[in-house]
């Protein structure tokens, strides 16, 4: 199905139409909105790191003081609720910001650099990852973004860097502890070059050695460089030598070079085209992004421009299926949720969001692994996946019917414009109840695609 540029701009490169916001008309609007997005303060900030730190410190204090189980449990609950709230804040931000393309890029990078928790302790700083490691770096160079990601405590914990010790470092010699190569491997395999690139086990080892010393200062809940863990000497990676006197800068140098590696350009160019346009992207489109990446040494605004300026970016509508988080976000836009109303709902709304995403099998802050969530339509539109979407559409339809006098046909037209198919228009109009008509619009293939 072919749709107008404006419809593709809003749905393919944004989170869809919001009845009370102006929509981009084409690639120029998308690019213009990026700078404005970077300058705009967050509508829905997450808990600042200092506040989290206090709550974590309080938990430790209670434990040390052998406080009652109830007090410890209450403090844990407070932290858990903070995370649920932050998750909802992050979704509201994406949904209600007028700069949809920027927010979609936040979504892309959050998934590309997926962080999760393998145990309760690791979860503490995950909500902090997006606002501090990603958002400030999305319009700079990929090298700076990569360094910020690799130095964020959530990533350092999730991929076990905090446990890695150079065998010949002071701590290694004293304790017999050694390397943990998890982060090094995923940096090469997932974050930069891609698994089919020409790196070897020796390169993984080399990078693991170079990364020793990177860790988390537990008191500050911040990145720290620990001399006593750093493996002394030089490290060979991809045919070159790095290292010297222990310092965080050696790994930074390598990561910045890696960010400009042609394999990194190829890997991420393809991922961008897959994420935004089609599960099987146009090779010319991928090549265009890749060439731009190399020519501009990983300068991200140039890369985004290459993504949206190519004609393949404006091809037939509906080649992608929205993942559940994106479905929920575009639903919040379609029902014209306003920021004040979102704030008013408070914890009730937060819990509802968390639950909906669990049921749709894409829970917040819990990616299936460091590779992030699957992209392919077939991974999501399974019988069980579709059942979850129907259930969700039904619940939203009922809420909406209770709360407004919205005409389902008008609802479908407003949120889909020229992407609305005749069969959907027919089914929505034929629904016996208003809530069911609204639900059918939300369950339609074109609302679930982009």
């Amino acid at each position: 199905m072919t749709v107008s540029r404006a419809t593709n701009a809003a749905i393919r490169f944004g989170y869809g139409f919001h009845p009370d916001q102006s929509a981009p008309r084409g690639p120029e609007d998308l690019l213009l909105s990026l700078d404005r997005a970077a300058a705009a303060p967050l509508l829905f900030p997450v808990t600042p790191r200092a506040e989290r730190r206090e709550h974590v410190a309080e938990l430790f204090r209670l434990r040390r003081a052998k406080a009652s189980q109830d007090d410890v449990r209450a403090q844990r609950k407070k932290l858990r609720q903070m995370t649920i709230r932050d998750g909802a804040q992050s979704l509201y931000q994406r949904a209600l910001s007028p700069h949809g393309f920027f927010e979609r890029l936040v979504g892309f990078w959050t998934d590309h650099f997926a962080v999760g928790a393998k145990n309760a302790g690791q979860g503490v700083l995950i909500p902090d990852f997006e606002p501090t490691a990603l958002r400030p770096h999305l319009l700079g160079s990929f090298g700076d973004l990569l360094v910020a990601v690799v130095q964020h405590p959530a990533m350092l914990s999730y991929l076990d860097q905090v446990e890695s010790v150079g065998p010949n470092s002071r701590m290694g010699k004293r304790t017999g502890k050694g390397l943990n190569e998890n982060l090094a491997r995923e940096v090469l395999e997932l974050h930069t070059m891609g698994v089919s690139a020409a790196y070897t086990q020796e390169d993984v080892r080399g990078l693991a050695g170079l990364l020793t010393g990177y860790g988390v200062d537990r008191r500050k809940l911040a990145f720290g460089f620990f001399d006593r863990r750093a493996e002394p000497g030089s490290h060979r990676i991809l045919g070159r030598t790095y290292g010297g006197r222990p310092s965080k800068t050696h790994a930074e140098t390598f990561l910045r070079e890696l960010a400009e590696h042609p394999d990194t350009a190829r890997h991420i160019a393809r991922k961008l085209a897959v994420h935004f346009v089609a599960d099987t992207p146009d090779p010319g489109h991928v090549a265009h992004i890749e060439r731009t990446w190399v020519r501009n040494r990983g300068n991200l605004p140039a890369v985004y421009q290459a993504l949206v300026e190519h004609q393949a970016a404006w091809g037939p509508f509906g080649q992608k299926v929205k993942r559940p988080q994106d479905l929920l976000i575009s639903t919040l836009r379609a029902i014209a949720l306003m920021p004040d109303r979102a704030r008013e709902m408070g914890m009730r709304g937060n819990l509802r969001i968390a639950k909906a995403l669990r049921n749709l099998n894409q829970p917040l802050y819990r990616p299936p692994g460091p590779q992030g969530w699957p992209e392919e339509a077939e991974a999501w539109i399974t019988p069980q996946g579709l059942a979850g979407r129907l259930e969700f559409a039904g619940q939203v339809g009922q809420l909406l019917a209770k709360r407004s006098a919205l005409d389902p046909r008008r609802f479908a037209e407003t949120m889909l414009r020229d992407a609305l198919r005749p069969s959907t228009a027919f089914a929505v109009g034929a629904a016996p109840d208003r809530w069911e008509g609204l639900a059918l619009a939300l369950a339609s293939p074109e609302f679930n695609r982009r």
Partner: protein
Amino acid sequence: MTLSRRAFLGTACSAAASPLVTPMVFAATPGENRLVVIVLRGGLDGLGAVQPYGDRDFTALRPGLATRPGDGLSDLDGFFGLADPFRGLLPLWQAGELGFVHAISTPYRDKRSHFDGQDLLENGGGATDGSLTRTRDGWLNRAVGLIPGARAETAMAVGREHMLLLEGAAPALSWSPTNALALEDDDRQLLTALYSGDPLFSEALAEAAALADDKAETRRESGATLARYTAERLNADARIAAFSLGGWDTHRRQANAIRNPAKQLTEALTTLKQDLGRNWNRTAVIAITEFGRTARENGSGGTDHGTGGLMVVSGGAVQGGRVFGDWPGLSERDLYQNRDLMPTDDLRRWAAWPLAAMFGLDRATLERTVFPGVDLGREPGLIL
């Protein structure tokens, strides 16, 4: 939330009212044998689960993780012992309904990526770099396509997770026991109209409508929940089922980290036995993983991605009470790249023999189509 009577999202009405529900009466199902494949995602540490305590090099490699009989380890055969978190499986072992195949792996080597490793494990191809066969489908799907009389109801992927293992040209169903979806006639017609012209959505709807019932009791996919639903399908028309259990990527503090996944696997197997009842005698379960883990423990009390691994076999139809496989030893020169347990056999061979024994697939087909390039070798005596 309470839903109205017309709840197409509903939890209240019965799916039996829908004409989309195919009557589950079939003259011919392909025999009475049953196979369950469990994919253990993340890389099960075979050396940690079934510990070669009789190998003189073992303790030195794993000073913090090795255990001994009398100290948490349950002796199996004088050489191997079952680690404490798996203790709940001992009754199956004692009944001869549990066995292991040690030091095996897929042909995947050296990059040790979970994602490529799992893809190859499910695809069944033979490329050491993990690239998939041209068909990019799952080996279990190809096998189903070769079983005479197999139909969509014969094979079932259970759980919300997408499984390459059963993807492909042959018909197979997929459903999660945590979904509730009940359709009344009117709703079904509207949804059918809504999804007309979009094959991906309309096929998923047809399948969902046929599988759903109003018994979604839980929202959590635990080993026991998945096994309970699997047993239910296997007691009805399904003969082949697959599901995944995660959590095996134990990079740190493995002694603790392994407890939950071990519990899930234990509950999955014991639930299958209990719920399959008499059918358990005609059932084989194989649990496979993308790779083993490093022979040495790492600096964090865990293990990193390795090569040679472990397969778990269970069921009334298996010749249990044995640890199969050629033991390579653990001295420095025995290890793969001085790092991992040396794989001495192709995992695919061990997955292929149950298909031969239970569904009559012949050697040439298995070696050519299901697991391209595998050498089936001698019959290993895995199935009774």
